[in-house]
């Protein structure tokens, strides 16, 4: 171990330090994202209570099995309600792509391409064959591939890209909400029809009934 550390140059050490820093930032970012997702899902799961509230209060649903079946049906129905707008947006994107491909007779068209697609609007880099100078660790150089510019030839990408991004994100939010409600449904099914004997004593209960009579 010591030999490896001694053989590392200053450049290598700096590189390892930078990599560790990037790793920590990535871990923190994932942690924060996970935390945010959990918070959002907790908020979304409250909708499950609203969906099954009336049926439970009126005792139309009175056992665990029935509750899960009813809750699941309501959950998927609500998901359909939430997901139809993003689905329409995604569908519009695909219809535009099909129209474009049939007009230009190019079925291998990449709508995210940096040449004639949505990618023309972004900075993109590619890995070159050359490597950075280092004694032990070698990295490929990043070379700027595209600067943001507007190209009329990429009209299909400009419609398809946003449609897929907006529709896809919206759909994923609906799915995460569905998942959160499912978790809540099973959580409620465990506690809602639970019968507890904490603090109950049969003899005491019998005595009480006798004295009342």
């Amino acid at each position: 171990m010591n030999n490896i550390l001694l053989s590392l140059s200053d450049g290598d050490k700096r590189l390892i330090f930078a990599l560790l820093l990037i790793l920590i930032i990535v871990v923190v970012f994932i942690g924060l994202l996970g935390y945010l997702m959990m918070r959002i899902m907790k908020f979304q799961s409250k909708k499950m209570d609203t969906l099954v509230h009336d049926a439970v209060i009126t005792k139309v649903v009175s056992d665990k099995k029935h509750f899960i079946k009813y809750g699941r049906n309501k959950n998927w129905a609500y998901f359909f309600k939430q997901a139809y707008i993003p689905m329409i947006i995604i569908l519009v994107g695909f219809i535009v792509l099909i129209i474009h491909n049939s007009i230009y007779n190019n079925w291998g068209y990449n709508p995210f391409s940096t040449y004639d697609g949505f990618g023309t609007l972004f900075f993109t880099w590619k890995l070159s064959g050359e490597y950075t100078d280092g004694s032990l660790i070698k990295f490929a150089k990043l070379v700027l591939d595209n600067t943001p510019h507007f190209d009329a030839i990429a009209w299909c990408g400009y419609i398809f890209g946003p449609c897929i991004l907006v529709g896809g994100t919206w759909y994923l939010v609906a799915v995460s909400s569905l998942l959160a409600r499912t978790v809540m449904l099973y959580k409620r099914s465990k506690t809602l029809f639970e019968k507890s004997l904490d603090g109950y004593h049969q003899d005491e209960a019998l005595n009480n009934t006798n004295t009342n009579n």
Partner: protein
Amino acid sequence: MITFLKGILKGLFYVIFFPLGIIAISLYAFFGIFVFIYRLIKLTILFFTGRNLKNELPEDEEVRQILEKNSGNEEKHDEPVLNLYPSDQEIYKTDEYVSPTFDEKKEEQQQSIKEEEDKNE
């Protein structure tokens, strides 16, 4: 210190379970597409057969009936009552005393007459 450690543990928990969450969401997203298509076809069939598009469950109908029944009762309670004899009604409303009906009064009178007759005999 403990809260700081708790925070770190929570962060680690999220880091470890984040990929699992992503897998669960992607599986649900994939399955959700099929459910969406199935429901869309079902709704289309319902539309063309001229049936209700709300696609309500039998439990919902039952719930609605119960709720309507309850709300109907509440409405009856709220209806204003014509108050001809306010003083009498205030007395009769109490739980302790319930005003006797005409027949009950008649029975009481007959009983008291009988008792008096028996005493006299």
